[in-house]
């Protein structure tokens, strides 16, 4: 039996705008575009087909208001689709997320290739509202839908010598035009230590705001590690490999003195470009203080006990 837990982000039928009003609004917006008051992008944005719903139970709240859906969809770092923050929302339409498979292999007893549709049904879906802190000193609050990475890893039965998990993004310049430039080495790769990967906060997202992921946010499957800078949360994953050695990671390969393997949010360790003690929450005018481990210290500080977090940045 399918139990529907109403999601607080989903408008009920009664809350929905009546069709007449909706079209009326569109006529007004189109008129404004016509006389040059609004950029034409507002029109095409309105024409996007709504993404499929994902039914999930909310299991974690951030205790703060979420960043608007529009802002989450239109302010992205996804260099596979361009450098500009709005480039991914413009260019990610070429990405084909169906069919899509994820290969899970390496040091596991049961390696395999999982179809994305099967992956969506394999585990009970949860909705978790997490803070998301970019290394560029901006942040958002995002309601993700997905499942803990630990559930997937347990399913493939890691061997005792598996110490790290390596992730890989799709590599296909015909779908990801940014891969024709040499801004990074392609494909994008990321990694976690086994205990980080198995931590209950570490999440595999299939959706946000109760719908499947928009392409520019890493569809159809991405990692979310809320206590680390955003670049660790690799998007559009095609392969997950369990390994015995620390795997290479994309930004670390590009600038090892700027981006470490751990990349835990740490207000005490500055990046050469960005002061990390403060951040601007998208939607705010003034910066706010950044919290150690992005506010998740109670959950995860224990993972790094005894480690020098200045050296292991």
């Amino acid at each position, binding site marked *: 039996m399918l139990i529907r837990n109403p999601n607080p982000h989903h408008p009920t039928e009664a809350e929905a705008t009546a069709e007449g009003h909706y079209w009326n609004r569109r006529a007004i917006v189109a008129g404004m575009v016509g006389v040059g008051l*609004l*950029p034409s992008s*507002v029109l095409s944005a309105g024409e996007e087909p709504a993404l499929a719903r994902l039914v999930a139970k909310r299991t974690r709240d951030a205790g703060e208001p979420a*960043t*608007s859906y*529009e*802002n989450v969809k*239109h*302010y992205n770092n996804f*260099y596979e689709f361009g*450098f500009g*923050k*709005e480039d991914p929302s413009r260019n990610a339409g070429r990405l084909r997320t169906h069919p899509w498979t994820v290969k899970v292999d390496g040091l596991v007893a049961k390696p395999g290739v999982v179809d994305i549709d099967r992956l969506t049904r394999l585990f009970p879906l949860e909705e978790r509202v997490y803070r998301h802190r970019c290394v*560029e000193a*901006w942040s958002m609050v995002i309601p993700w839908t997905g499942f803990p990475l630990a559930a997937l890893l347990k399913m493939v039965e890691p061997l005792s010598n598996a110490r790290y998990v390596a992730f890989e993004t799709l590599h296909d310049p015909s779908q990801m035009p940014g891969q024709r*430039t*040499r*801004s*990074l080495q392609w494909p994008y790769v990321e990694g976690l230590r086994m205990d980080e990967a198995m931590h209950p906060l570490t999440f595999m997202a299939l959706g946000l705001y109760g719908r499947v992921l928009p392409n520019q946010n890493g569809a159809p499957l991405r990692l979310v590690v809320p206590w680390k800078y955003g670049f660790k949360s690799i998007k559009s994953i095609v392969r997950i490999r369990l390994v015995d050695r620390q795997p290479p990671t994309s*930004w670390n390969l*590009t*600038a090892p003195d700027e981006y470490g393997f751990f990349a835990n949010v740490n207000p005490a360790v*500055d990046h*050469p*470009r*960005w*002061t990390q003690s403060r951040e*601007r929450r*998208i*939607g705010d*005018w*003034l*910066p706010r203080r950044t919290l150690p481990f992005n506010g998740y210290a109670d959950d995860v500080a224990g993972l790094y006990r005894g480690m020098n977090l200045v050296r292991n940045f």
Partner: protein
Amino acid sequence: MALPLAILVGRWLMMAGGVSPLDAGLTAEPVAETINRLGLWALRALWLALAITPLRRLTGWAWLAPWRRPLGLWAFAYGCIHLLVYFVLDQGAAFDLLWADVVKHRFILLGMATWLMLLPLALTSTRASIRRLGGRRWQALHRLVYPAGGAAAIHFILRVKGFQIEPWIYAGLLLTLLGMRMVPRRRIKV
């Protein structure tokens, strides 16, 4: 040169009127976007100002000459607003935070250096200043524009993440403009 500024002001007025930053065309992070755009226009105006003399030499177009000073002043004006928005909305108008940022980040230091080098040039941009300083000393002072351009170019290169081509194009243009000055003057008639 006033147009980009007018457009930016228009977008801020839209936001003041309740339009979301995204719909006002300033992305979801309007502060960062505004700072970036102002910086880019400061750079463009400075490059154009630096292009006047070599272009005159190349083409002999004397009518270009009166454009040099206003372009230089526009570069300084955009630089001032760029710095002001960064100081107020990024550093919370706190001088201790600003100082900490300057000391910690090389690209901020270079941006500050650019502004400080352009400041005396803007202050001595009048005819009266040329008379007071004397042509030779005024010219020597205004050669500060070359290191200012260099600092601005490196400021941009260090600012972007990963390898992006745009700041290198600006650096290449600057080197070309400065290199053209090395060519011995032949055709120019002042």
